[in-house]
């Protein structure tokens, strides 16, 4: 669709949100949110339920009205509290896919998908042609005349997707769009969505609580927590370097509180894999274990202050004592520990480990150890991330 409004020259991004505030009674759903989305990219809003991500999406769509702030989509100001601008949802030229699909049960597949064209008074013949084309794209070409109620969940999802794309909107919003599908179908749709976006080049905002979905689909990720933006960045950045305790916990890392013993430019031993980090710290954990890790936070961290040590489950290495004895080079940062529980996950095995009174979880290929066994646990220093304590946490997802 061709835009009538001239592009605002002051803004380089496609979607601009500034200072958006929204409250529901006493509850602050959005606390001064600002964000940008570049044209043709996908932004994922990630966070636990109640973090404000869905409210953010609904404010973009015009389904919810913020109290304060500014929203611009494709150069068109759609909401500006200071100038009393608030466009109705239908004036914002968007597409949306809901978790519940929201496929209208009283219409056929063709009528559902053709709806955005019908309300735009596109000529009948063109409507039909465009609907057929987009149905082919989502693989439902043969379903044009079928009642929408005969479709399976995955097919309804495709109808909803086709409906959101048929009028070539400038921005497509996805509200937990894949979470009603079963795991296998979800993977498949995720790939198809990515292919479609490359092909059609639309800009997307994708709300989800599922981190793997966000990492797979997004060019940029914003992690939200209680109405704030907690972290934003490239998927790899957010994944590799959780910068806040909240993100670390949300992504499912082991998080242990301790006290910083000292900080240094480098740990006092050679690293297995060389990785540049500006600052290192040694942290004393409860039970007397001292661990070196890299500081994953920009602010100053002084000796004596409280800190969190975060390490991904996949990086906690469990070795059976025999293997360790026979083992190769003596590894840094390995501690005697005990297996509390082991559960078989198929390709890998999850262990709950007791390390001098603290509990760690590890996921790795089976080490052949069982509940109650004494083991060696290695915490590679380059995988231990040290963050300041008390900067805001949430219950693990």
């Amino acid at each position, binding site marked *: 669709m061709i835009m009538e409004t001239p592009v605002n020259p002051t803004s380089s991004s496609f979607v601009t949100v500034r200072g958006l505030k929204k409250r529901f009674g006493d509850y602050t759903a959005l606390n001064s949110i600002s964000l940008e989305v570049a044209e043709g990219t996908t932004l994922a809003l990630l966070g636990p339920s109640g973090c404000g991500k869905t409210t953010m999406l609904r404010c973009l*769509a*015009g*389904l919810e009205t913020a109290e304060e702030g500014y929203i611009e989509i494709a150069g068109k100001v759609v909401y500006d509290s200071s100038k009393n601008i608030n466009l*109705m*949802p*239908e004036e*914002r*030229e*968007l*597409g*949306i896919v*809901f*978790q*519940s*699909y*929201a496929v*209208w*049960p*009283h219409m056929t597949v063709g009528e559902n998908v053709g*709806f*955005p064209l019908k*309300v*735009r008074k596109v000529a009948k013949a063109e409507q039909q042609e465009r609907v057929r084309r987009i149905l082919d794209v989502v693989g439902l070409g043969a379903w044009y005349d079928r009642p929408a*109620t005969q479709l399976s969940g995955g097919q309804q999802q495709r109808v*909803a997707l086709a*409906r*959101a794309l048929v*009028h070539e909107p400038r921005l497509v*919003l996805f*509200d*937990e769009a894949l979470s*009603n599908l079963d795991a296998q179908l979800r993977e498949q749709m995720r790939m198809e969505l990515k292919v479609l976006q490359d092909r059609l080049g639309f800009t997307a905002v994708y709300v989800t609580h599922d981190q793997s979905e966000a990492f797979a689909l997004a060019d940029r990720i914003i992690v939200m927590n209680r109405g704030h933006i907690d972290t934003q960045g490239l998927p790899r950045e957010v994944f590799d370097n959780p910068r806040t305790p909240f993100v670390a916990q949300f992504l499912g890392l082991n998080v242990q509180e301790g006290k910083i013993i000292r900080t240094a430019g480098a740990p006092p031993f050679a690293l297995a894999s060389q990785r540049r980090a500006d600052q290192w710290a040694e942290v004393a954990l409860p039970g007397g274990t001292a661990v070196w890790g890299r500081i994953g936070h920009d602010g100053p961290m002084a000796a004596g202050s409280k800190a969190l040590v975060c390490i991904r489950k996949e990086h906690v290495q469990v070795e059976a004592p025999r293997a360790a004895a026979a083992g190769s080079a003596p590894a840094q940062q390995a501690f005697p520990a005990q297996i509390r529980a082991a559960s078989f996950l198929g390709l890998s095995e999850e262990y709950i480990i007791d390390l001098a009174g603290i509990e760690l979880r590890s996921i790795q290929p089976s080490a052949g150890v069982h509940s109650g066994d004494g083991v060696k646990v290695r915490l590679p220093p380059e995988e231990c991330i040290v963050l300041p304590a008390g900067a805001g946490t949430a219950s693990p997802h």
Partner: protein
Amino acid sequence: MMRMAGGTVVTKPLDAPAGTVPGHERRRSSRALQVGLPAFGVLAGIVLVAGPFLATLIRSLLYWSPDGASVAVSLQNFTALLSDPRFHEAALNTLICGVGATIFSTLLGLSLAWVVSRTDLPGRSWFEIGNMIPFFLSPYVGAEAWSYLASPNSGILQKASLDYFGVSLQFVNIFSLGGVIWVLSLFYTPYVYLLVISPLRRMDAALEDAARVHGASFWYTVRHITIPLLMPALLSGATVVFVTSAGLFDVPFALAATRGIRTVPTEIFSSVQYPADFGRAASFGMLVMLITVALTLWQRHYMAGRRYETVTGKGYRPRVLQLTRSGRIAALALETFYIGCGVVLPIVALVMVSLSSIWTGRFRPAMATMSNYKYVLFEYDLTRIAIVNSLVLAVAGATIGVGLSILQSYYLNRSRSKARGLIEAVLTMPLGIPGIILGLGFLILALRTPLYSTLAIILIAYVAHFFPLAIRTISAMFMAINPELEQSARASGATWGQTMRYVLLPLLKPALIAAWLMLFVIFVRELGSTILLYAQGTETISVALVALGERNFGYVAALAVIQLLVLLSAFALFKATRASIGQE
């Protein structure tokens, strides 16, 4: 056997008899109960439905020669009826009343439901209660009240508008087809309202949001998404209103029959008055039953393909429309109009008339007297007996009806019989059949039996007519109860009876209370079948109202207010139990 270190037995082998495991005998009686009780309920239901139907059918086919000497099986009754111009007049009038009432109550019910569920109108929760009240009131009393309010010469509204505004409303005449439609619409609006409000509330907001985001305006979305999604509820509401309002005896009897306007229910009534022509009445009844059943079947068939699942996923609450100033005034005016006409005005009129010793159309507070109440409560045998009879019938009928419906619902929801669908169709049949026609069936059955002119036959007719309503309420609750809850009770060693008593009935309790109160209300005000079945000594309040109507307005109004108080307390109880369910 597992032994601990000390040698104590901690678990018993599974096959050894233990004190709490039911013995063989007990298990057998449990099975007999489980099969027998629901089967009994279903059989009783079928007999109650089939009895009056077959009686009417057979009677309609029997034709006595004019001299009464010979009887033959023929269609003579039908041909006589169909060629009678009075029948055509009655059928046309009833069609007009039914269609009129259906149109108005559908429009009113939908608008009221929408205002209450989808706007931010202040005081919505109060209006929500107010909109429901007419559902619990007696249409006969409502018609009486409206005859006080809007009769050409002595109507309260006519006199008041003349006194205060100098406007003559003489042309407004409640004793007309228009008057019948008016009162029917007021009383049947809650049927549509109730059926529409829950889909309006529970509809997945995303269905409407998606339309808005994809470019549809608010009104376009209402027309193309919201209304079509409500269509199944609207259509079933309209069918229910048409079938029940057209067959209702109370309102045309009060407002049309007195002015010589013929309708189907009142014609059936006069057919069995002296000199009675049961053949004519029975063929009349058969025709109405056929139309009712056909309409109900058509509606079922239509709905079968259109059960939209509009509740899905996490679903937000539908958006509430923020009304503008003028919108708020319009919504408020609509609510005031409906509750005013359906509840406030009729009650005010009844109270005014009941407090006046002579009614002239104007209320004089200085002359207010309780003498009418004193008369109907303490001095007049007919009304005293009628009040007792009504309460006895309502309590006994509601209890028996709910008891039967529990068994039937159990059968319909828990048995694996293939006949379930058919049996459900049969059991829910009486709902649409007018009371006067069911009453006729039982009258034909009971004539020349000891049941004739007893309270028992009235009780049987009540239960037969309205137990399907209880089935509907209880079945809805049954569907929400996972059978695994009962299965775990059985697995824990409970018999079927114990499972019913400790698991199922407590879970069903809210529905049982609601169904009981609903039947109670319906039985307290029932007129259509009672008017055919009562005899001296078995009058009910509604019958007494009719009987008194010929003598004194004040007595009628006083007795009507007493009935109203009973109905309103049942409504209050209903609201109270619903509220306590909501808190759970």
